[in-house]
């Protein structure tokens, strides 16, 4: 499936005509409608297959950003044409499609796909052709060894060390800090990677890990696992879940008449967990939520509103923008800054510019001069409070009047 968004959209033709008429009377600074041969930006997303739930969010965010960029001055004054292909959640498909994007579709620039495995597959192709690749969802930064690959999400170079400590710091602020923990994780590589990190860091800080359990991705029956968690009865349950696995774990626990005291979920489906009767006070990682102080960052409020409108129109059950969608927004912001900063579509020049400069994104100011082109980690903790996700930790990022609640 190929989708082209932006270049030949009627609204731009109309906008172009309107801008042309206006330019007769307007000062030169307002004559900024992109024109000329489109800059083709190619990417794949997992529009079908087991990662498709997240790809739809990224697709909406991407389309929104292409329109945003074209609504400004495009890239170097030229309109952006987004060439999107479906990698079906398969790394081998992503690899072939990036080859096609570069050699057959002759795209000028590329954006990364979603999730670690497709990103790694695409990165090999990008490296072969020397293309800059910006991605927002590679959970294992140390695997990003290509020097023109850039992260759009502030994971930091060692999230397996930094993430757990933010969580443990938050836990330590409880009136009764947890002393025991159960780690339950999917075998999905990035979840497993984080779980191992959590185990190591927790033990370093004297939190006893009672159980470390791994389950296959896509597991449906959590009955026996729930029975083990209940029997261990930890002070803190850490779930390395993807999608609705968190809901299934909590439901399985409730069927045993057990509610975990404090519980953290790694990559849950945000909407269903927030709305679930079992989700109250659930904790999760984030980089941004549609709340203050983040909404005061330039453009965030507008993007959040626009995203909600489009997601509702696309029939998504949870249409509030979150860190996932913002990752894609950040990708486009970095690409735009890189191209305009380098004043070139040349990948070497863009990469060189990004390594030397910071970029203002929805996640704040990001740098790319650290290990694996990562900058500082900026992980936050959010919590379900009254069926909404609220940033609760570190305290300076908590929305006004919101506090971390211990169970």
């Amino acid at each position, binding site marked *: 499936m190929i989708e082209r968004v932006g270049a030949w959209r009627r609204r731009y033709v109309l906008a172009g005509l309107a801008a042309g008429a206006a330019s007769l009377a307007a000062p030169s600074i307002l004559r900024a409608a992109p024109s000329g041969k489109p800059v083709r930006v190619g990417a794949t997303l997992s*529009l*079908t*297959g*087991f990662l*498709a*739930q997240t*790809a*739809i969010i990224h697709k909406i965010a991407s389309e929104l950003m292409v329109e945003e960029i074209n609504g400004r001055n495009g890239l170097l004054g030229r309109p952006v044409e987004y060439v999107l292909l479906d990698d079906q*959640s398969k790394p081998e498909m992503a690899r072939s499609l990036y080859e096609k994007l570069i050699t057959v579709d002759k795209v000028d620039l590329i954006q990364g796909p979603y999730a670690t495995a497709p990103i790694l597959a695409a990165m090999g192709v990008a490296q072969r052709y020397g293309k800059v690749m910006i991605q927002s969802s590679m959970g294992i930064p140390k695997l990003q060894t290509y020097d023109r690959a850039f992260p759009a999400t502030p994971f930091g170079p060692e999230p397996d060390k930094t993430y757990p400590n933010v969580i443990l710091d938050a836990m330590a602020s409880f009136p009764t800090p947890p002393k025991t923990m159960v780690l339950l994780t999917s*075998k999905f590589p990035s979840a497993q990677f984080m779980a191992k990190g959590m185990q190591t860091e927790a033990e370093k800080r004297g939190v006893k890990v009672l159980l470390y*359990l*791994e*389950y*296959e991705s*896509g*597991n*449906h*029956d959590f*009955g*026996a*696992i*729930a*029975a*083990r968690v209940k*029997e261990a009865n930890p002070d803190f349950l850490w779930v390395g879940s993807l*999608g*609705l696995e968190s*809901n*299934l774990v909590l*439901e*399985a626990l*409730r*069927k*045993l*008449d057990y509610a975990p005291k404090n519980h953290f979920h790694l990559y849950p*489906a945000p909407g*269903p967990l927030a*709305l*679930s*009767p*079992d989700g109250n006070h659930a904790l999760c990682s984030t980089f941004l939520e549609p709340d203050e102080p983040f909404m005061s960052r330039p453009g965030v409020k507008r993007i959040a509103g626009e995203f909600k409108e489009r997601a509702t129109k*696309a*029939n*998504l*059950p*949870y249409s509030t923008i979150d860190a996932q969608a913002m990752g894609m927004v950040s990708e486009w912001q970095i690409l735009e800054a890189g191209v305009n900063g380098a004043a070139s579509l040349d990948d070497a020049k863009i990469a060189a510019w990004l390594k030397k400069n910071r970029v203002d994104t929805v996640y704040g100011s990001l740098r790319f001069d650290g290990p694996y082109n990562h900058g500082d980690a900026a992980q936050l903790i959010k919590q379900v409070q009254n069926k909404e996700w609220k940033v609760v930790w570190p305290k300076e990022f908590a929305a006004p009047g919101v506090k971390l609640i211990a169970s």
Partner: protein
Amino acid sequence: MPSVTLLGQALISGVLAGGMYGLLAMGLSLSWGLLRLVNLSHFALAFLSAYIVYELGTNHGVAPWWSAAMIVPAMFCIGAGQHWLFDKFRVNELASLLITFSFAVILEAGIQLYWTADFRRYETAYSTLSIKAGPFYIPVLELTLCIVAGVLAWGTWLWLRKTYVGKALRASAEDADIAAAYGVNHKKLAYFLSGIGAAYAGVAGTFIALIATLAPAEIWTWLGVVFAVVIIGRLGNPLGALLAGMLVGASESLAMAVLSPAWAPVVSFSMLIVILLWDPEWI
């Protein structure tokens, strides 16, 4: 060492989870065993049913049992219609695998087009209800599923063993020409059986909507284990499919309780390999 309570609870959870394997396997087993058609679209039909139950329940307030009352007959018709296509194009066992895989892919795409790829969850007041029996908890929905699956499996088994139609179907599966010589109209019976298989997908789908997570790609997550269950339970034997489902479910669950949960999928396929190597007469 796991406690008796943990082992008992794991066994209960596993047997009940196996009920779902069995329910999904029953329709597949009938079609494969008695019609010699491997119907991969069975999983997609079950998920289509689940999505319809979700849609009717969430957006229109229709109780799942009323949804099931509409969906099951509709699925019967779809199953019969599917068989009309197989019959018209003289689809054999191998071709059925490919064609029904295509059906499943098309249905998956259709589901995604309408409901999007996003996760759907049908929340009901009774989704986490459990009965307490001593130190054990028995989830009500899963128990209901097992009872329904048991009634269907037992009823179908009796129907195949005791009625003329059932015996005729089995005879046709053994040797269609000889059965035809005795006046068995295999074509007509095949339509009926194909409809029954799809109707079972409708029943399974109703419970999937209530118990599991809905996402289009989830269609494929049951495939491996259900195939193992169909083979272990013996082709064309609904009671065998249900018992095999419960056996596999219980084994997986005990593996999760005693070993690592990640070992659970290994159990079902190891059982399959052992049984195929052992080659007992009942397979």
